């Protein structure tokens, strides 16, 4: 027996090495870690329980059959992060360029089904040349296990179908560390969160050679699908990092804020920050004149536990901030206008960014805090006429808030007029409690716009229209819109607070709302999210 054990261990250690030594060396020369090195950094030391290391690749009838492909170019398994279980897989670029063979498909489906049935998040570390063409052409000799692995979760899943089925059941995270193109890139893009490494990871529908072949156009990988493009323009990437290690570290940090599945709440962490802490800095941040910019991040950092805030899509649609923080050790989603960037305006992109985040928080039991100070929509011909259509995209956050069932609290810090109220949430839309600071200006319409409408004739016919406008505005502000009390008297917000109290008040209110159960509404299969 000991001889056989020795043989098993020799064979195992051979498979654990992955691709040929020169391929491993090449991977390191590119400044990249191997798949196994990455997974060892992602999960707690020694916790990776690998599945199907021993799998044999399918014979294709092409010369690639002569090459040994350990694990069929992917490592799959269950590992622990801070002691909690996660399904993980990593493409092994040192084995046939990390390409998808049939055995790889089988392994990835198995791990996705495992995530779905055992209710664990699924994390994928991507570095692959996409589908292995030889395998696609190969004889259909070996598919008995495909999809049949677990009928209870729908049977014949495939790697493109699974993310949709997992969506909203277990969190999914993609860490892009290498390339992936075309259909193959769909599966990772359907994940909830995306971390991309700069300069080594690329993701687009069309790869540069394919683009050249079909449209005769030259473009670089960077131009078509680099991390910078996806972080700043398309908004696909939540994080951009410079190294593999940094990307994996961010992934480890991100998952501390999220639950394992949609029936659980995120883990409660002892942050050591006093729930009754009042912060004097909160008196200094907002300028007396609300038209001056200030950085909303400062307010967030003063309020949340130890100032720790993990921001998503930080480089995309920067006039709105989204991300996770903790209040008294419990995860909250923060949605905040940022007057420090383009005055905190609402745009097509802020609407997409905000709606998806609200929907995520709702799916995974994370209460949402809205910090509000925005002049409203960016009024421009370009936005109205764009392909996304402002009037079509604008309602997305409104829709998401109305559907959400998690506790939601609003703090109006500065301006919020008219349509912006529907985007940042009103009590009638399902916000549970709305507070304001003494600096708040909340009304159903921007007072200056109201004057122009109500007194149009007087202003147009006056000799000094500006003076009439100024006088009427002063009168309106004094008699009807006495900020901040107007919104309180109209019950648009529930109470006004000393800014220094923000943290203790939010923590107390969240405790009160902890058992929120929304009244049932009419039965439906699913809603039709605004396009």
């Amino acid at each position, binding site marked *: 027996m000991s001889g056989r054990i020795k043989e098993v261990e020799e064979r195992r250690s051979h498979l654990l090495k992955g691709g040929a030594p020169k391929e491993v060396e090449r991977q390191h020369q590119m400044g990249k870690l191997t798949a196994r090195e990455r997974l060892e950094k992602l999960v707690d030391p020694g916790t990776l329980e690998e599945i199907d290391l021993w799998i044999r690749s399918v014979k294709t009838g092409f010369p690639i059959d002569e090459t040994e492909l350990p694990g069929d170019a992917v490592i799959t398994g269950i590992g622990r992060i801070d002691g909690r279980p996660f399904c993980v897989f990593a493409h092994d670029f040192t084995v046939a360029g990390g390409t998808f063979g049939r055995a790889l498909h089988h392994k990835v489906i198995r791990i996705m089904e495992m995530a779905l049935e055992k209710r664990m998040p699924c994390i994928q570390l991507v570095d692959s040349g996409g589908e292995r063409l030889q395998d696609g052409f190969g004889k259909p000799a070996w598919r008995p296990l495909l999809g049949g692995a677990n009928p209870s979760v729908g049977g014949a899943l495939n790697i493109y179908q699974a993310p949709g089925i997992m969506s909203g059941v277990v969190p999914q995270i993609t860490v892009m560390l290498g390339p992936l193109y075309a259909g193959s890139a769909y599966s990772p893009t359907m994940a909830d969160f995306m971390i991309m490494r700069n300069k080594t990871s690329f993701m687009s529908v069309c790869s540069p050679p394919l683009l050249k072949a079909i*449209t*005769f156009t030259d473009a670089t990988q960077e131009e078509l699908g680099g991390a910078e493009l996806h972080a700043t323009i398309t908004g696909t990437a939540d994080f951009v990092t410079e190294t593999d290690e940094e990307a994996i570290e961010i992934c480890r940090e991100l998952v501390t804020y999220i639950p394992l599945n949609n029936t659980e709440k995120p883990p409660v962490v002892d942050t050591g920050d006093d729930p009754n802490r009042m912060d004097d800095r909160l008196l200094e941040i907002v300028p007396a004149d609300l038209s001056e910019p200030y950085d909303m991040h400062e307010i967030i950092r003063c309020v949340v536990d130890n100032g720790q805030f993990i921001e998503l899509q930080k480089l995309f649609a920067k006039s709105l901030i989204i991300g996770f923080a903790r209040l008294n050790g419990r995860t909250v989603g923060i949605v905040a206008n940022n007057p420090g960037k383009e005055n905190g305006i609402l745009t097509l992109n802020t609407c997409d960014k905000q709606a998806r985040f609200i929907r995520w928080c709702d799916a995974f039991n994370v209460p949402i805090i809205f910090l509000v100070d925005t002049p409203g929509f960016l009024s421009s011909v370009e936005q109205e006429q764009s392909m996304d259509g402002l009037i079509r995209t604008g309602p997305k956050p409104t829709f998401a808030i109305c559907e959400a069932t998690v506790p939601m609290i609003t703090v109006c810090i500065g301006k919020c007029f008219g349509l912006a109220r529907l985007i940042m949430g009103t009590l009638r839309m399902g916000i549970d409690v709305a507070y304001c600071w003494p600096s708040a200006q909340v009304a159903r319409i921007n007072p200056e716009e109201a004057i122009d409408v109500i007194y149009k004739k007087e202003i147009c016919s006056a000799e000094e229209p500006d003076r009439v406008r100024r006088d009427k505005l002063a009168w309106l502000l004094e008699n009807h819109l006495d900020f901040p009390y107007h919104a309180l008297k109209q019950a648009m917000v529930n109470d006004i607070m000393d800014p220094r109290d923000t943290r203790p008040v939010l923590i107390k209110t969240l405790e009160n709302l902890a058992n929120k159960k929304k009244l049932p509404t009419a039965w439906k299969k699913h809603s039709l999210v605004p396009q």
Partner: protein
Amino acid sequence: MPLETIEVPLAGKVLKVNVNRGDKVTEGSEICTIESMKMENPILTPVSGIVKEVGVTPGQVVKPHETIAVIEY
């Protein structure tokens, strides 16, 4: 006389050009063919008139909005 500029609608390569400067063309006739997405895309003139300018030659790689031809009508 007004001028109609026919632009390249999608990136590709010019396969053939059917008109020369000075030719008379009728609405709907094929000005040139552009190969793109492994397909041959006929480019038609939306107006009848005289070709004042031809901006492409066979084999040329073109990008969207480049001028294929200008028709006076």
